[in-house]
């Protein structure tokens, strides 16, 4: 029955020391179906592989078992060996008699007996193996990048430069992301917008890039190489083809609301561009605040000033959301981050907030991104450091690091990675503008690993005289001192062991970084994993840092974990590179060890559809030649299935099986253990 060749490796002394390889080989040769049983010093070596190949040719072997190390080590090696000798690569099984036998059992008799059983199991399994061909999936040579912050911009430009069409989706009215709102960047203190703006313009103009701002991903169908992504283009009420971006509308708009781009520190109008360098430099009407749109709901037509102002007839109050489907081969997720809002009410029940800092209650307690705007030349104060409550130039500013980060008790467990650096930057920027000011920093540790980073922090301390206190602030109170409102920070300096109370004019909190809102629902649409905080999971932390477990979906930037701009850009380029590699293939090959449904017997109950982590299974109709419905069935999409086998276990009628790990194969392995 079948002709199986078994090749047992000595691995030098690694296996042979504790396993009597010759005895094993002899015992295995007696198993039914074993046509030859050989042993050799190093099976993975060139002569070892030649031995296998020659036996295949000599005996016409129908299956091969290599008893040596872990399949994680050499399964691919031996698959190639047999393939070159004319046997299907999936007709090889390995028996792991090194890692799981000779290295862990020192009693030679026991280890030898175990090795024989392990090989017997592999022989039993390989007898049930089927010849398989890799699955070929066609590829759509177009990519989608979700999020147009610095990561998305970088990835899109790299892909476009590689000749791939890119759909760049951004939910805000402009590209640019968080970086567009930053003042200067560490450790060089060069202007953030000066670096970014040219890239933003390039994205807007690149012939290979289709820019979809004010748009969100609604639905994702399909699979690697063949995604169908439906994008919701939100109603902008401004026809950006007609609009020239002249500004007469937003200059005349009577309705003023806080500008989210300035984190509420400045105002904008209801029809607005978020910031002057926006790309596209076309306004959008904020429907919630527009007097006209609000009145239309009540059947009236108030205001309409912008309509009158517009010389190109670009305003359309009857604009509606539009759903557009795009076919893309790869998706890069670059949705970035948000700051942890530390007020007491938290969405995540594990987080308790930091009510004791009075954030949201005391106007002069702000977060780091707000400080960026205050200190930015294009910010609401024109770059003049003024505190929000009364516009006074703060003389004493307290910076509190690790607000929320590294707090197992009630905050977030991880380090947000960039706060040490930007706080040092903040102290410098502050001192550069307020020469007689005092910058106090409360910190837990200073983490400044990186090129020129530690030097940068030392500069803040040594040259710009920032006062670093190693300790936490337990509470902030608003007090009046000599008629001036102060934020009294009750801190401690653990180095001196003394309490340290500072009356600050302003407090800047280095709030922890969280993935931006909505990322988990996006991740679910894409079948990408995420951690307890919503950071997307890469496929392997070291070896596959930008891939995800959803084939064809890549991640970069802060949506994957806290990181600074250089790292973000590097990762974005990496993601684009990986996507380019994928899209450069004429078709994708995928492992054929996937689930398969016996469609004749499937009752289409849908349990597998619910269980599949990859949405790879769908309910389909089976029709006869005339098109009449015969029955319903589940069907596995070979382009999506990753071969986990969860569907096999949940199938009530065992109508699904996992090729390569079928019940038949597992049963054969088990039965081989019967004495």
């Amino acid at each position: 029955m079948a002709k199986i060749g078994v090749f047992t490796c000595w691995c030098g002394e690694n296996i042979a020391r504790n396993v009597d390889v010759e005895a094993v080989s002899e015992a295995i040769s007696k198993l039914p179906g074993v046509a030859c049983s050989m042993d050799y010093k190093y099976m993975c070596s060139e002569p070892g592989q030649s031995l296998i190949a020659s036996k295949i040719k000599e005996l016409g072997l129908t299956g091969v078992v290599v008893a040596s190390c872990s399949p994680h080590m050499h399964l691919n090696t031996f698959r190639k060996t047999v393939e070159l000798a004319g046997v299907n690569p999936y007709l090889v099984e390995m028996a792991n008699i090194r890692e799981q036998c000779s290295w862990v059992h020192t009693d030679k008799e026991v280890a030898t007996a175990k090795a024989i059983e392990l090989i017997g199991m592999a022989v039993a399994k390989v007898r049930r193996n089927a010849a398989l061909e890799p699955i070929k999936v066609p590829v759509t040579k177009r990519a989608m990048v979700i999020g147009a912050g610095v990561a998305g911009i970088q990835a899109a430009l790299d892909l476009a430069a590689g000749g791939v069409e890119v759909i760049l989706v951004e939910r805000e009215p402009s590209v640019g992301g968080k970086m567009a709102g930053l003042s200067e960047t560490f450790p060089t203190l060069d202007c953030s917008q000066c670096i970014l703006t040219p890239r933003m313009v390039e994205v807007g103009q690149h012939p290979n890039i289709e820019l979809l701002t004010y748009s969100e991903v609604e639905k994702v169908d399909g699979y690697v190489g063949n995604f169908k992504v439906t994008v919701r283009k939100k109603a902008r009420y401004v026809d950006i083809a007609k609009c020239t971006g002249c500004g007469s509308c937003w200059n005349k708009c009577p309705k003023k609301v806080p500008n989210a781009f300035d984190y509420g520190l400045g105002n904008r109008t209801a029809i607005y561009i978020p910031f002057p360098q926006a790309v596209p430099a076309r306004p959008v009407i904020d429907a919630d605040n527009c007097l006209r749109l609000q009145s239309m709901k009540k059947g009236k037509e108030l205001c309409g000033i912008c309509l009158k102002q517009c010389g190109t007839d670009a305003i359309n109050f009857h604009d509606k959301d539009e759903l557009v489907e795009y076919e893309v081969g790869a998706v890069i997720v670059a949705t970035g981050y948000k700051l942890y809002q530390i007020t007491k009410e938290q969405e995540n029940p594990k987080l308790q907030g930091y009510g004791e800092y009075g954030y949201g209650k005391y106007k002069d307690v702000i977060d780091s991104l707000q400080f960026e705007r205050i200190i930015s030349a294009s910010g609401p104060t024109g770059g003049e450091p003024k505190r929000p409550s009364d516009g006074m130039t703060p003389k004493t500013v307290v910076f509190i690091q690790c607000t929320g980060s590294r707090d197992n008790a009630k905050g977030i467990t991880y380090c947000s990675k960039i706060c040490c650096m930007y706080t040092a930057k903040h102290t410098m920027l502050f001192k550069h503008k307020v020469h007689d000011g005092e910058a106090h920093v409360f910190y837990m540790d200073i983490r400044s690993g990186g090129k020129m980073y530690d030097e940068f922090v030392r500069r803040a301390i040594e040259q710009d005289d920032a006062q670093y206190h190693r300790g936490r602030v337990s509470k902030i109170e608003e007090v009046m001192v000599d008629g001036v409102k102060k934020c009294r920070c009750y801190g401690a300096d653990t180095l001196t062991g003394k309490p340290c109370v500072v009356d600050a004019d302003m407090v800047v909190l280095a709030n922890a970084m969280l993935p931006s809102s909505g990322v988990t629902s996006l991740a679910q649409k894409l079948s990408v994993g995420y951690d307890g905080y919503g950071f997307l999971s890469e496929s392997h932390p070291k070896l596959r840092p930008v891939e995800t477990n959803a084939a064809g979906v890549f991640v970069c930037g802060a949506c994957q974990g806290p990181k600074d701009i250089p790292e973000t850009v590097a990762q974005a380029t990496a993601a684009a590179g990986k996507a380019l590699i994928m899209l450069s293939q004429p078709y994708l090959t995928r492992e054929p060890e996937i689930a398969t449904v016996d469609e004749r017997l499937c009752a289409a109950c849908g349990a597998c559809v619910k269980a599949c982590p990859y949405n790879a299974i769908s309910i389909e109709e089976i029709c006869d030649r005339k098109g009449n419905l015969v029955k319903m069935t589940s069907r596995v999409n070979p382009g999506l299935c990753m071969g986990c086998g969860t569907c096999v276990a949940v199938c009530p009628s065992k109508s699904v099986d996992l090729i390569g790990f079928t019940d038949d194969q597992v049963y054969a392995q088990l039965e081989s253990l019967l004495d």
Partner: protein
Amino acid sequence: MENELRNAIRELLEKQEIDVAIGYGRVGVDGAVGAVFVTSPDDVEQIVWNDECRQNLAVHLTRPEVKAFGKIGIVVKPCDARAVVVLANEAQVDLDLLTIIGVVCSGIKRAKPDGTTADEYYAKCETCVQHTPQNVTLVVGDVAEGEALDAKNEQNAATAGNNAKLAKLRAMTVEERFAYWREQFSRCVRCYACRQSCPMCYCNRCVADKNRPTRIDTSASLKGNFAWNILRAFHLAGRCVGCGACASACPAGIELDLLNLTVSDAAKEHFGFVAGTEFGVDPLIGTYADDDKEEFIR
């Protein structure tokens, strides 16, 4: 109430809202109650309702012979109604073609081995706290009476009927339990009557009939019988509604309802899951929660 039921069915047939009504009638030896399939309003007098209406008629809904009728009206007891919900949730019945006629049930008397009616309710009825059918198209009978029975049973549900048997079983040592089921399963003849009378056993081919590989030995030996009965119990995890059709069909008198109850109980205890209470619910197996119990995992 029987008349109320007949009238309801007559009306449905007359208005052609249904092509067939599956109900209970005196069809067996000596007028024993079994399923009748009434297609004409003139025949509704065949339909009866009493405490001998044992069968779970939902078992017929997935049979091709029955589906061929078209629009079906089915008489269901409250426990059977839950079976219809599970079938709908598993896409086995088309609710558009189904009129679910729920009857308020005050308990069903079990059959003696010779097929006659015992003067005793089924054990499942003693713990039943749902005498009024839920998720049905229409309800026949006195809902208030049903609710009164619910309230009455709620008081002793924990210590009566199958729950009492279950408690007894749990009080045994693990060896005693093994011996208990060993004796029970030794009687199994592998006729698969349990499967055939179960509404949830609609698989196109049962695992027991699949032979690549043979997952369950076909012989009525202890090995095969053990595998069959426990794999079937697991097959019903999160699906069994506790109607007891399997136990009443078993010619060997194996306490299959008790076996299934242990799994349903676990589903309820660990996951708060009760099968067939709601349309549109995802299956218990095939979904998960982040905080599923795991203290037994090393």
